[in-house]
């Protein structure tokens, strides 16, 4: 198989990217569940394609530990036995370990990203036992680090973040989430913003480069987020033809210089929506920013959430009286797939979409 494929999935909350790097080398970035089957979409998709996930998935990367990027990740890791597991180096600290271990010990709460990460650690422990040597994550992602290389095929994968400053900052951020004595055992809340998220650069040839923006945001300091990537002189060279727009297209993640210096003038941009919260992402203003750089912009799902659930009329009436707003946040699993006949032929690019994914 010479063709290159990048498939983006996103049902409204959650995202996952499955990529064929060529020559039966597959890579998975993040994990989410198919709302209809509750199975990790990456495994479901690859199994449908007849890919042997145990041998052909070479790389599994978790960009950060939030629920919407990590659901079902432990199952993916278990199935992809020969995949290198990569996660942010920001997680390799006492603060994050304490956070995971404390929340892991309470089993009564609804699950969170921390719970899923605890399951991942369980998988890593199993790998260690079977190989009789301690195997943590195979690679700790850091700025400008090559994490995968196939010299004969010209395939390289780099991580562009987190920066050193983001790494240091994340330790104190994790510390703030650690529960204290006598505090209530509530669910752990997500850590924002996402300066420790792992942004990925895939180099598949002279003209074919892909940028996966994770949930990385822009910070006022040059040493954090997208400014750190832009100002870095050790990052891989070139301009990306395909971009997974960072942080669901939010204006917090928009840096003009990234679009002009790191991205091709006519890129294929894919957004995974985030339908939770006061302002579902991307907003119309966010789209305006993105569209000025890309005429080929796609979204993997509905920006407003899923279809209204029909209930008993008494329930509907009461809910209407009680709630100021109410909506379904997860919809059907949409998919945007970008394929190239091979890494040297970028003119033969094709984009296919699966409902409710759409072109913007």
């Amino acid at each position, binding site marked *: 198989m010479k063709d290159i494929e990048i498939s983006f999935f996103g049902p409204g909350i959650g995202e996952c990217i499955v990529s064929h790097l060529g020559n039966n080398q597959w890579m998975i970035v993040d994990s989410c569940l198919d709302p209809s089957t509750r199975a990790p979409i990456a495994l479901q998709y690859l199994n449908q394609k007849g890919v042997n996930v145990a041998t052909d998935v070479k790389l599994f990367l978790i960009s950060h530990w939030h629920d919407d990027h990590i659901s079902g990740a432990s199952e993916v890791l278990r199935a992809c036995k020969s995949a290198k597991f990569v996660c942010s180096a920001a997680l390799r600290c006492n603060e994050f370990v304490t956070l995971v271990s404390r929340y892991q010990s309470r089993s009564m709460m609804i699950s969170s990203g921390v719970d899923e990460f605890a399951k991942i650690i369980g998988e890593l422990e199993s790998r260690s036992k079977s190989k009789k040597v301690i195997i943590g994550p195979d690679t700790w992602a850091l700025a400008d680090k090559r994490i995968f290389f196939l010299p004969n095929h010209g395939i390289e994968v780099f991580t562009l973040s987190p920066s050193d400053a983001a790494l240091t900052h994340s330790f104190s951020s994790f510390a703030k989430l650690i529960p204290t004595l006598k505090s209530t*055992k509530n669910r752990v809340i997500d850590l924002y913003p996402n300066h420790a998220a792992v942004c990925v650069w895939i180099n598949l040839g002279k003209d074919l480069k892909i940028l996966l923006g994770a949930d990385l945001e822009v910070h006022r300091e040059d040493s954090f987020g997208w400014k750190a990537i832009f100002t870095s002189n050790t990052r891989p060279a070139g301009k990306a033809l395909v971009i997974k727009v960072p942080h669901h297209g939010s204006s917090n993640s928009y840096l003009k210089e990234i679009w002009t210096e790191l991205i091709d003038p006519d890129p294929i941009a894919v957004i995974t929506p985030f339908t939770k919260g006061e302002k579902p992402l991307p907003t119309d203003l966010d789209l305006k920013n993105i569209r000025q750089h890309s005429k080929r912009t796609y979204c993997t799902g509905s920006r407003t959430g899923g279809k209204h659930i029909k209930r008993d009329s008494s329930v509907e009436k009461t809910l209407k009286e009680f709630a100021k707003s*109410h909506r379904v946040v997860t919809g059907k699993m949409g998919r945007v797939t970008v394929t190239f006949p091979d890494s040297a032929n970028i003119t033969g690019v094709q984009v296919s979409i699966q409902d409710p994914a759409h072109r913007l």
Partner: protein
Amino acid sequence: MYSPEEVRFDPGQVSEETQSQRQGERGKDTDRNVLWLGPPPFTLHKRTESSSISLVTGQREPDMELPNRIVVRLPFPPPTHRFKLLQQWEGELIEIKNEECTAILRDMSHPENPIEEITFSVAEISSSDISLAVPGSIFYLSIGYYDRIDGQRLRTASIRFRRLPAWTMSDFKRAEEEAEKIKGIFGLTKEIRSVERY
């Protein structure tokens, strides 16, 4: 003999000691300080070794014939309503802003349904639950019919926050063992950890 259900008395007549006994030692057969009911009009008595003392008048009544021991329960008010549940969700509070709460809902009545999001006024939360309403807290949202004893039916939506336990030292100690294991898997050796402290 009169059954416990027939007993009526003013709880204010019972001393703190006897109230706590009644709650803490209900069903226990102890020799001392057992509650008794005197003869009609059913004043409460506390038995000592050879006599009983009226808890109302405080007077010793040595010759009173002690009745068989009975359990005294505070009278429960009769039910004034019945709740017929139509729909229930488990919610997780995400944000409280401008007197409005935003929460994620998971349908408990139909678990196959997708995740929903709701915004409602803080005023919908009862005063007994308001202190529990913080980001990350878990609640139940129930919609149903409230059938009153007088025959009235009200359609209501009610929010009840879960009374989750607090973190204890033993929770943390258990977690420490787990943390040591994870530190091993993450390669956080003792040397590295001691350097991190500086």
